[in-house]
């Protein structure tokens, strides 16, 4: 996803003279092509994220479309007040990109994990929260974010994630994309968990279960129309995200559910639990520790469906 981001922002930057790229001293060589094409619109802001976010907001208030890029915790928790005051309160159209969604940088330890970002960003007034599932959705999301009139947060993965969209789907902020039709239950995924969720769907199908899969690339605003439809049809709806179960996609859907309905459907939320991971390991290891691998998810869903 990281490389797709670099390519797409280079393309957008060449086309639109308002696009400015600010990076927090990461992405060595990643943005060389952007720098070649628009040397006056690339800023390595150093290891100073609070300032970087304020600078971006100041640019946005002066008619530019700044895109801020660094590792997720440093572009969110590190400079949260600048996001809240400078970007959101001022309704400044800043695009904030966090790379290394969820447990992508598992090996780097919890300082570099981000299992709280969706929760804390979506509670900010004026903020839009995006989590594309692959390189194709990322490109579409970035294009939409740059033309959006207010601040947007977008969490993306690292490099080498599988591409799940075979061709470009129709994309609009706040409109979920149906990845697979099904009758028995609905799996709602956001961000980089989609390949796992599709694997879960395949495993369930082998049990004669027919799962529908939805890509909620927008966590805020939620696609309420789609939720209304899903909850009216299925007995079981499950959200899956590489993020804490509190406050992210699952939390948002639970809030929505509490105010709507009643529905026949039961909601299950899959995400990380209320703990830091103190042992080091790969992203796959970290996912397994939180029960976020395809096998663990399928094993919890089967009994909920009354299957053996």
């Amino acid at each position: 996803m990281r490389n797709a981001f670099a390519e797409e922002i280079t393309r957008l930057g060449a086309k639109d003279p308002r696009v400015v790229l600010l990076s927090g001293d990461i992405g060595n060589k990643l943005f060389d092509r952007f720098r070649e094409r628009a040397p006056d619109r690339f800023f390595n802001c150093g290891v100073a994220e609070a300032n970087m976010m304020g600078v971006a907001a100041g640019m946005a208030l002066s008619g530019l479309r700044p895109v801020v890029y660094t590792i997720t915790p440093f572009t969110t928790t590190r400079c949260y007040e600048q996001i809240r005051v400078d970007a959101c309160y001022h309704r400044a159209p800043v695009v904030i990109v966090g790379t290394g969604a969820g447990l992508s940088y598992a090996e780097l330890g919890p300082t570099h994990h981000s299992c709280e970002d969706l929760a804390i960003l979506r509670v900010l007034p004026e903020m839009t929260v995006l989590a594309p599932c692959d390189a194709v959705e990322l490109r579409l999301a970035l294009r939409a974010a740059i033309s959006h009139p207010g601040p947007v947060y977008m969490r993306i993965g690292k490099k080498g994630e599988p591409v799940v969209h075979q061709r470009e789907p129709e994309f609009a902020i706040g409109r979920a994309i149906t990845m697979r039709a099904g009758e028995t239950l609905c799996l709602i995924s956001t961000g980089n968990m989609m390949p796992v969720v599709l694997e879960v769907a395949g495993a369930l199908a082998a049990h004669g279960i027919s799962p529908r899969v939805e890509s909620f690339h927008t966590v805020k605003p939620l696609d309420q129309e789609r939720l209304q439809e899903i909850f009216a049809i299925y007995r079981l709806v499950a959200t899956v995200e590489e993020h804490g179960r509190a406050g992210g996609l699952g939390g948002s859907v639970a809030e929505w559910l509490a105010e709507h309905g009643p529905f026949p459907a039961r909601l299950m939320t899959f995400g990380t639990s209320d703990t830091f991971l103190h042992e080091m390991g790969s992203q796959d290891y970290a996912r397994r520790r939180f029960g976020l691998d395809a096998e663990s998810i399928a094993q919890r869903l089967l009994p909920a469906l009354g299957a053996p």
Partner: protein
Amino acid sequence: MMVAAAGLDTDELGRIARRVRARIVENSHRTGTPHLGSCLSCVDILVAAYFHTLRLDPAEPHAPGRDRFILSKGHGAPALFQVLALRGFYPVEWLERYGEDGSMFAEHPPTPHDLAGIEAATGSLGHGLPLGLGMALAGRIQGASYRVYAVLSDGECNEGSVWEAALMAAARRVETLAVVIDYNKWQATGRSEEVMAIQPLAEKWRAFGWSTYETDGHDLPSLVRLLSNVPDGSGKPVAIVAHTVKGRGVSFMEDDNNWHYRIPSAAEVERAKQELGVEA
């Protein structure tokens, strides 16, 4: 399009500054708005900027080529509100609603969308300089020659984000950016030097790569000269360390930190107006 500055002479600036001070004191009494000491210490900086130096047209507050002025010490908003009204951004009568529910005028500046003349909604300290740096860099990208001024308090220089911005502005040689420190030697609850070892403040800015000047922050001719001299030809961002007196202009408020929060009585307002020689 380059907009002209008001360019008033310093005698006239002095009369305006006294009037602004009287209006701030009266408004504090009438509406219970605090931070009098902080407001009075930055009045001369605001008046020199708005009535002499800044190239702007109050009738076109969002004109792309205007100079930007950010009151980063947002608790000085009661001073800024008076100056913007007298400069013609909105009618002075609007200030009669000061402190009322639903009005734009309280303790900190609202956003630029809410009130003409405001460039940034400050109040949380340490935000104005990064925002101003972004505006100045945007001007460079767009080929505009406008200047950006940010007024910070000495207490505000406790914030790390101020020094992050100072480093980046120097690295990028943003010569259209100026910081003015309203150096009144106090912060909310103590002497700024005792709380955070702020001295030597001018040396700090110099060491951070800024073209740095020191002045009496109540000397209007000197303020006018320094503010107008941005960019100053050094190729560096400009720092003006303005030595000020908290509560300046009202003898019983000067250098007395109780007036960070105290509200004056009717009798104190009368005394202040007499000292300032204005009817407000």
